[in-house]
């Protein structure tokens, strides 16, 4: 099971990295999402083998699953959820102001004034 999960982490990372290198922001968002899944799976994997729930009375302490990585993964999931929502809003804004969601090239260095100065 560990080997299957490890390969799964590898596949998620590979696909995520591929998508991250694309030009469209929607694909980048998907790539970030897959990378996030990969890391969460990795966190789960480092907790060791599955066991009984880590609740007093549910079983012998030696048979319990390690609760720590699960707590960490939960936190990471919540954070990536929020960030993905923000990225999607950014992609939408980019599409509604520019008509596309490609990550644009910068204008020639030095020639460019910062576009909008909040004032």
């Amino acid at each position: 099971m560990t080997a299957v999960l490890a390969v799964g982490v590898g596949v998620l990372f590979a696909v995520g990295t591929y998508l991250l290198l694309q030009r469209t922001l929607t694909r980048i968002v998907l790539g970030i999402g897959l990378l996030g899944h990969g890391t969460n799976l990795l966190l789960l994997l480092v907790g060791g083998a599955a066991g009984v729930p880590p609740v007093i009375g549910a079983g012998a302490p030696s048979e319990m699953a390690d609760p720590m990585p699960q707590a960490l993964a939960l936190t990471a999931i919540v954070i990536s959820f929020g960030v993905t929502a923000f990225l999607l809003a950014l992609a939408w804004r980019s599409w509604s102001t520019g008509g596309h969601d490609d990550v644009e090239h910068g204008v020639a260095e030095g020639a460019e004034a910062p576009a909008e100065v909040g004032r």
Partner: protein
Amino acid sequence: MNPSLLLPAPILLPLVGAALTLLAHRHLAAQRTIAISVLTASLGVTVALLATVVRGGAVAAQAGGWEAPMGITLAADRFGALMAVIAVVMLLAVLVYAIGQLDPDVEELFFHPLYLVLAAGVSAAFLTGDLFNLFVAFEILLIASYVLLTLGAGRGQIRHGMTYVVINLVASTLFVVGVAYVYAATGSVNMADLAGRIGDLPPAIREALGLLFLVTFGIKAGLFPLYFWLPDSYPAAPPAVTAVFAGLLTKVGIYAIIRTQTLLFASDGPSTLLLFVAGATMLVGVLGAVSQGEIRRILSFHIVSQVGYMILGLGLFTVAGVAGAILYVVHHIVVKTTLFCVGGAVEQAYGTGRLASLGGVARRTPLLAGLFGIAALSLAGLPPFSGFVAKLSLTEAGLASGRWLVVAVGLLVSALTLFSMTKIWAGAFWGRPSATVAGDGVAARVAVPLPMLAATVALVALSLAIAVFAGPLWDFSQSAASELLDPSGYVRAVMGP
């Protein structure tokens, strides 16, 4: 005072403030009052914390009463407490600056709640004693910074913001991967606990983990070769936002590098890798700055170049070197924020930061020119300003360790820094007022809002104070550096005797 009250307060106060400012939405005056009073209270608490640490050594608090290494540990030694104080001072100064600078319409767009969340994240990063919570602190401050960077959502801001968000997300992913591997190898994420356990790992695994964290924080700090996102994204934000980013955010990365590389992956002698990275970062950053033609873009490249000096001090792994790095961080945070404040004020008054359009600003607004001059000379490291003290201590430390090559690079970069500061001075401040500066329509706008000026003057005064009190500050940096290189006091404070 009890450290279990002092340690969480700089994190909780801004978070409570953020909630209150959200409730006071559409009441700008109330939001401003809340934000300023919360940060002032934070300042009081962090100063008290620093005093406690100086008197009795490192302190720790276990959130929820769960003992380390199981619970959520907050800890502060001299370095952490000093960074927390400086950060709150900067946040407070830039807040005043922002109130003068930002368009009320933009300011109303949740600026104050976001800014306070950023403050909470920065304090949490400096005061946490737990690797995973360092990740959480980074995420708190980064998410606030994503929104601040794209505040107002202009087209250019979206494009530059995108680069910033995506690159930081990649770094965060690497961070969690690093935490997962550390947990797999040692079974702990508490930094004080890890300090004892990581030493037992096989050297190959230890070095791989150290490198993973160096890359993660290197992206956030803007180290060579991972700096490219920084000069691209920072100038796109409103000037007040750039000022606080420039002063604090990369330095949180530097803090994390110094903390992990001394507490977890300490090296016995000078680290050639770090020294190489330091030299390359200094050189590439300053060369980038020399080729730019817009005030805030030049200054952004200088952030990269300056970060190299801090890594140079760390890379020596001697008390003098790390103390030099600490002194440099303190000096840099103040001076860099000042420069961005002045640059933003020039843009505010004349509508552009391009050197080609500016000229003769010194005649129209001599005060701005004077403030810029002091900060610029300090950045370049001319005596008697604070940069000189910081660079001198790094140079001495480098020579004492026999690393003359990287010291030579540092001195060359100082000269180039002076050159590019002269370029801003000659292009924007000196000479006859250009059409943009002297034009008919300009006269009405030239008055720089009072809060902006007051904040900038206060920051310049602070940087001069660093130069005046360089002696005591140097002593403090040295004791902070000895604590970092021999973290037994920190470990004892967290883990118990």
